[in-house]
């Protein structure tokens, strides 16, 4: 036990002191935020240059509703005859919005035309249609003798209440949150396994190529060495993730305050509308989200995250260690890595495509029980789990830890033989033969 701790400590320190670890740890969040800032800056620069649009509206039906904003700049050229206006617009403007002079304003419905070289963006089309619609609607209301203000005031915004047969209340938008949280946890586990499994493998290969391995295993059991490596590297990984989260949050905060980046902007709404909508609907939404999050089985989720994290990481990284022991160099490892990475990728795909549509369907259920995919798929399912699914959760955890013990035992066998084998790359058949040594 003491020796395991010594190995673990060395692996952790060696990893953390490594220059690439330090650079990776502090550079990646900066890089990430840097790119976000750059993208934000570039797109805001793009918006600075508004698209120039000419309007030819002789009747003056709608031109007053088109106000300049930072995306679009409108110029009224209704004074020119249409032919000249068209000619001028093709040279000086991005496009020409042509509203013909009509007898009845209602006949504008399908007569408004937008003429341009490049096809207009969906956003722009929507905006124009919306404006024409509103002009026509208010005209129609007026003709019918209805007060527009009264109609707006009479509008009702209903809210569909969702509940379960079991009696509990379920809230709208909960699924989005569940998917986001489950998906994030599953994806995090996969990333961690791939990155830190690889580190474990490299560390094994390093000891083999350094030829220090024989000295070490004359002092400790190969199993201790393997476990020390796996745990030491995982601790370094957890540290790195923690630093990333903290630094990332800090940098995002700094970026947001200093550059005033608006992370989400709704182009179809005018700023005033957006503000109003955000204040009322946004507050409501936020409130319901908070209630929903509190209603989630947070304790269970955290517990399961830790359990699946440990089970999944140990299962895979012991396989990585066995592969590292079997080969002499990283280039030789590709052949053996593919069967390890496949179930991980499969797990993520199943999680994002199947669990979202049908969290308790056959595919999602089966893959959340199979140990190689369960750490990812089950984690994504957990927010959706109901008490009647708990047997699946328990079965999945039992199977995961059962196979975890088996795989560690199996990997330790290969590891024990592999670390002292130099020269030719073993075949799969030879790996199984080693188990008998």
């Amino acid at each position: 036990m003491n020796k395991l701790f010594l190995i673990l400590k060395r692996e952790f320190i060696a990893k953390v002191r490594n220059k690439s670890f330090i650079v990776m740890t502090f550079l990646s969040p900066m890089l990430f935020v840097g790119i976000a800032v750059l993208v934000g800056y570039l797109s805001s620069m793009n918006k600075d240059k508004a698209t120039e649009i000419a309007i030819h509206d002789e009747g003056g039906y709608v031109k007053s509703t088109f106000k300049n904003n930072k995306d679009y700049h409108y110029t009224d050229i209704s004074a020119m005859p249409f032919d000249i206006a068209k000619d001028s617009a093709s040279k000086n403007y991005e496009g020409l919005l042509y509203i013909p002079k009509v007898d009845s304003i209602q006949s504008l419905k399908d007569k408004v035309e937008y003429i341009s070289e490049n096809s207009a963006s969906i956003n722009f089309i929507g905006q124009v249609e919306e404006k024409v619609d509103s002009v026509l609607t208010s005209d129609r209301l007026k003709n019918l003798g209805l007060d527009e203000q009264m109609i707006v005031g009479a509008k009702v915004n209903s809210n569909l209440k969702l509940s379960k047969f079991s009696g509990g209340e379920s809230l709208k938008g909960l699924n989005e949150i569940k998917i986001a949280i489950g998906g994030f946890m599953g994806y995090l586990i996969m990333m961690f396994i791939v990155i830190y499994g690889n580190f474990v493998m490299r560390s094994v290969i390093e000891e083999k190529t350094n030829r220090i391995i024989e000295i070490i295993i004359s002092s400790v059991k190969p199993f201790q060495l393997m476990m020390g490596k796996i745990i030491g590297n995982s601790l370094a990984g957890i540290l790195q993730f923690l630093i990333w989260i903290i630094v990332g949050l800090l940098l995002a905060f700094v970026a947001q305050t200093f550059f005033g980046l608006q992370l989400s902007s709704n182009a179809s709404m005018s700023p005033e509308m957006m503000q109003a909508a955000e204040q009322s609907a946004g507050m409501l939404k936020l409130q319901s989200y908070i209630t929903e999050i509190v209603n989630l089985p947070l304790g269970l989720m955290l517990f399961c995250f830790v359990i699946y994290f440990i089970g999944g990481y140990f299962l895979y990284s012991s396989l990585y260690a066995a592969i590292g022991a079997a080969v002499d160099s990283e280039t030789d490892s590709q052949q053996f890595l593919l069967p390890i990475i496949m179930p991980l990728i499969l797990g993520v795909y199943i999680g994002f495509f199947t669990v979202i549509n049908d969290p308790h369907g056959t595919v999602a259920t089966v893959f959340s029980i199979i140990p190689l995919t369960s750490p990812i798929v089950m984690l994504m399912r957990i927010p959706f789990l109901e008490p009647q699914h708990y047997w699946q959760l328990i079965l999945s955890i039992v199977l995961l830890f059962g196979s975890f013990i088996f795989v560690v035992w199996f990997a330790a066998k290969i590891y024990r033989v592999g670390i002292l084998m130099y020269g030719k790359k073993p075949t799969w058949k030879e790996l199984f033969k080693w188990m008998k040594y």
Partner: protein
Amino acid sequence: MNNILEVNNVVKKYGDYTALNNVSLAVPSGSIYGLLGPNGAGKTTLIRIINQITMPDSGKVLLDGKVLNPNHIQYIGYLPEERGLYKTMKVGEQCLYLAQLKGLSHQEAKKQLQFWFEKFGIQEWWNKKIQELSKGMAQKIQFVVTVLHQPKLLILDEPFSGFDPVNANLIKDEIIELNKKGTSIIFSTHRMESVEEMCNHIALIHKSNKLIEGKLNDVKQQYRSNTFQIGILTNNIEGLMYQLTQKFEVNPTHFKSLNEDIKLEINVGNHSSNELLSILTNFGQVTHFVEKIPSVNDIFIQTVSQ
């Protein structure tokens, strides 16, 4: 005499291949024991079994009379043939780590390290990384790490490879000094002259079997052929040859000498060496008379090629 190490009927198979076939050895306490054998004979497998790196399929290994167990690790020092260190780790930290793995406490390890670093005059290497050292320097560190925990049994596999003659000599002296202090040493090498010089016991393993074992002198006694190399200055060569061939087997030979003498190799068989000597003295001046003692090299080649 008690034995520090006993290997009893050890068998080790890798699949269909038998690496050790019922091998038994006894290493006396305080000896320098040469473990010889051509490449692939099974020496490394045997050494790994003694170090508990691999387990034998059957048979027992006793250290100091007790069946080998994990606690014995601290009594054995092992310098493998395939050896190296963490390249990017600092020398001092690395030595401390390896010593602690052998069961030494941090303070004890530090104390021992200071002793050895001072002895070799390498204190300034403490904060260097292994990759900044030359191969010979790294080998020195490796030797220090091997003996640091004051093992009762030292197993050295090709200890001199990678050393220049000066450092090889330094290490050789250290080995002998450790042996004088009571450390038993198993010495596996292909350099027969160092076996000749240092070992007092040898064992020869060939094709997974032990062929020879015993005190170096006893083994030599076994392989002694009662052959003498002689040099003589004489005018009557025909007469001498006639008399000699009557009794002995005579062959011409070569050795370095300052005289223009006749050089012969004579197998006296059952006769005594004095009989040979008396014949020789009748014919002239004897300039060279020495028994041909089989070298370890001769024994090795003779046994292996049989």
